[in-house]
């Protein structure tokens, strides 16, 4: 390809890059607006950020009829699989902006940069979802990481927040290094950085399996860090605890889902071959399916067991979100469309209930001024609306019907069982973990519903209507998707069809 063709391709690609361009434009607009507005914490920046996200949402919806196409000389791809994730990122970003508007942690602080960084983070997530080249994969991960470091330390006067940022940065740098090393080995084995080409080359030749295994494990370090999967999870509890709560909510959903998008695409495209019967299997030499199964089992078990002893709600939710990454990984090990479909379905469900739980944390921070579970005593009598909503989210997280969480888990387990007796053991581990997880979710319920409140505390607390509306927009779909989930299932199904084809 000569330089003019490359330039032409890049220019043509711009028309498929509209949502990202909108976000980029929004970043610039936000910075300038913040400079022009004298008042540091003016509501205009948040409203502008919201507007930008909504416009980007519309632009993403418009891309749905494009099918699947590669852009920027095969650096990125626009396909329903990435669009599915982009919609998820936008919806969660909108919610996080809404949460930030009410958050008392952020009140009185300059928020112009905060919203700018959040849009930048969203842009990074977009790139992660559509990267198909090892270079873009690495750059997008770094993009997300660096913006995340700054957002985690946003409450810089609070010691825990600075600690969170530092830990995040050190772990991030470490895992990026490992991943880069893995990329270099893979490049050495195949001579290309494009994951589709890597897939065909690995299938055609028989590379040294030790080198390939090393590179896969090193790559997994990079993805695992984003997913907070064991053993790359150590940063999560400290960062979740220290970061501003809306940002924690975003971390637990956005980068995690983007990590899944990358992981699914990379493993299913670069490291899988299609058999003659149309079934996919891991390439010869590296049984990454079993490797991921072990990671999944370890992730959910460790997350759940450590969550039991947590006293701080944000730390508890951090370990719970580690465990949920383990559940969602169960779908990826299967190499079947059914499995991937279950995973991406689960991510949306997880977004609903997890953002919901963090919203409650913010509401209770507002009402009782504490993140300690002990201080949630008697909240069912004092503030029934958020307490009942919390009950719905917790039952959903525990996977009880009739909530969306059950359906999500049901799909994951169904995919595992469908895969045949080979992964029955993982299903059993998952089931046992569901029971364990109920214990600590129920502990929060016990504090809210069963324990007596202190006499000196006020008997009832007023919840602002703003929060009630936000809660309703999360509680209703959490229950609705537990009863009738066909639309979401169809969307997820449609997205998976395009995963391997290009």
């Amino acid at each position, binding site marked *: 390809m000569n330089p003019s063709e490359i330039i032409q391709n890049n220019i043509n690609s711009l028309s498929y890059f509209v949502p990202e361009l909108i976000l980029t434009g929004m970043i610039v607009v936000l910075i300038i607006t913040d400079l022009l507005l004298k008042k540091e914490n003016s509501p205009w920046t948040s409203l502008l950020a919201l507007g930008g996200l909504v416009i980007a949402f519309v632009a993403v919806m418009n891309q749905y009829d494009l099918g699947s196409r590669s852009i920027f000389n095969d650096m990125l791809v626009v396909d329903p699989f990435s669009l599915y994730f982009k919609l998820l990122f936008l919806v969660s970003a909108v919610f996080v902006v809404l949460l930030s508007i009410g958050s008392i942690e952020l009140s009185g602080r300059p928020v112009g940069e905060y919203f700018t960084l959040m849009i930048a983070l969203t842009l990074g997530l977009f790139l992660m979802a559509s990267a198909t080249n090892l270079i873009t994969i690495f750059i997008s991960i770094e993009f997300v990481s660096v913006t995340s470091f700054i957002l985690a330390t946003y409450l810089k006067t609070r010691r825990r927040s600075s600690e969170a940022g530092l830990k995040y940065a050190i772990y991030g740098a470490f895992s990026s290094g490992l991943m880069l090393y893995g990329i270099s080995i893979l490049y050495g084995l195949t001579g290309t950085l494009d994951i589709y080409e890597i897939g065909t080359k690995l299938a055609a030749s028989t590379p040294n399996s030790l080198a390939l295994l090393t590179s896969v494990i090193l790559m997994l370090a990079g993805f695992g860090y984003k997913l907070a999967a064991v053993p790359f999870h150590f940063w999560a509890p400290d960062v979740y605890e220290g970061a501003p709560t809306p940002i924690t909510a975003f971390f637990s959903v956005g980068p995690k889902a983007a990590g899944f998008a990358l992981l699914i695409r990379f493993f299913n495209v670069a490291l899988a071959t299609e058999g003659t019967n149309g079934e996919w299997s891991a390439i010869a030499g590296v049984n990454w399916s079993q490797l991921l199964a072990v990671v999944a089992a370890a992730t959910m078990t460790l997350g759940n067991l450590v969550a039991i002893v947590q006293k701080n709600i944000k730390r508890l939710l951090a370990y719970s979100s580690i465990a949920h990454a383990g559940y969602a990984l169960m779908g990826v090990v299967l190499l079947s469309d059914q499995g991937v479909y279950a995973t991406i379905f689960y991510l949306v469900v997880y977004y609903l209930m997890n953002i919901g739980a963090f919203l409650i944390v913010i509401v209770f921070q507002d009402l009782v001024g504490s993140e300690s579970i002990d201080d949630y005593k008697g909240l069912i*009598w004092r503030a029934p609306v958020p307490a009942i909503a919390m009950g719905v989210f917790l*039952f959903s997280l525990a996977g009880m019907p009739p909530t969306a969480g059950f359906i999500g888990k049901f799909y994951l387990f*169904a995919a595992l069982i469908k895969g045949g007796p080979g992964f029955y053991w993982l299903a*059993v581990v998952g089931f046992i973990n569901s029971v364990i997880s109920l*214990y600590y979710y129920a502990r929060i319920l016990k504090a809210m*519903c069963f324990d007596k409140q202190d006499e000196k505390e006020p008997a009832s607390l007023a919840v602002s209507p703003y929060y009630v509306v936000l809660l309703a927009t999360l509680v209703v779909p959490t229950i609705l998707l537990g009863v009738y*989930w*066909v639309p979401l*299932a*169809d969307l997820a199904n449609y997205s998976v069809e395009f995963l391997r084809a290009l």
Partner: protein
Amino acid sequence: MNNVLTLITFLPMVGVLLILLVPNGNKTLIRILAAVSTGLQVLLAVWIYINFDSDTSSMQFREQYKWIPSFNIEYFMGIDGLSVSMVLLTAFLSFICIFASWGINKGVKGYFAMFLLLDTGMMGVFCSLDFFLFYIFWEVMLLPMYFLIGIWGSPARVDADGMVRGGPYAAIKFFLYTLFGSVLMLLAMLVLYFNVTDPVTGGHTFNMLYIMDQSNHSGVLNNFDIRLWLYAALFIGFAIKVPLFPFHTWLPDAHVEAPTAVSVILAGVLLKMGTYGMLRISFPMLPDAMKWEYFAYGMAILGVINIIYGAFCAMAQTDLKKLVAYSSISHMGIVLLGMSGLTSLGMNGAVMQMFNHGTGTAMLFLLVGVIYDRAHHRNIDDFGGLAVRMPIYAAAMSLAFFAGLGLPGLSSFMSEVFSFLGAFGSEMFNLKAITIISIIGIVLTAGYFLWTFQRMFLGELNPKYKDLPDLNGRELFTLVPLGIVIIFLGIYPAPLLNLIKTSLNELVEVVKTANPILWGLQ
């Protein structure tokens, strides 16, 4: 009335919605709404009873709609003789329990909303014929139960051994045990789903009737070992609910800490879910595994352990409510024993026992609640001579005790005799020795009930209780119907037996004649 099963299942949910609209202060209106919705449910149950055709074993009042087409999940309801008896029991006990809960004063709205939600869950379990739907209802029962025991049960306290006990502890224990059972069931359900072919569409199916048809089984279901594992998973799931030794330890806690009406529902209906699940799911779906001799004898032996061990535990109790709780364990053992012989007599006896234990134990728990409301404790040894002060109460209690120990002329006599004779006369398995041992349980039961009666009602009157009032009108209103049913079915059990026998005889036939070829396929 084409949708009578949907109506009877979701009627309480209408009650919930109405109750949520009532302002908090208006407690009486909330109670009346709950009573009306369960009352209408009783009327529907009566209608079902009248229109039920007991000459056929096929499912009646069917409703079948597509729900989630991609997974072939249907909204499929229908009842046969086995389920109709449980539907009647559930409607009857729920209505009575609303009145037993009249005195609840804390969080009235939440209490009755939870109670009616529980009602919907129970009805749904007995009516659904789609395994997925069944599972949803099965789990929906757990949530309200957790809150009913935790919030309205006894408050948390520290026992002499330093352990924190009380409602919250019992609630989470109940929840974890039963959830563990449910996830085992979910696992087995998924394996069944992916290895059963829908004869109409060719896809997989949750339709219970299709899963029961062995000719639809394929894939790993042709592997006898896998079938045994599946049966074991389902059996443990249901055994936790019964509860069978050694999965029974949640029961004394839950029963003792729960408020009276919730104990009634727990013992009266929820324990039956376990045996109902076995008869509706495990037996017909995996009949060859049920007939595997280790499982068949294992089930009978567990039944006997329940009978004897439960009776001994009951005898050792000083807390009246705990005594009744252990007597439930003992009586549910009889159900298991009756089922395990695979005879028509034993099977009918077992289901009759399920019904009769439901009414009998309900009465016992209500009576325990009566004395607890008055004396604020349940320590048997602290009472004495109460028959003088509370003659009607003593009479009611003696009726309930005699029903519990299987006195001829009262309902459980028939069902116990049927169960024991059925097990004894089994042609497939030699359960004679096991049955003879279990008869000892009857003697033990008579022992602890009579001994308790003596300690509470005869002898010197404890002067502390010389002013206790006898049963009031509301309490009589809850107890008299139960008493009538107990006496009536004791003298004339035909209405119940006729209702269930066609379906159960069919079930016995199906399991007995199920394809024995699979035995060789290890």
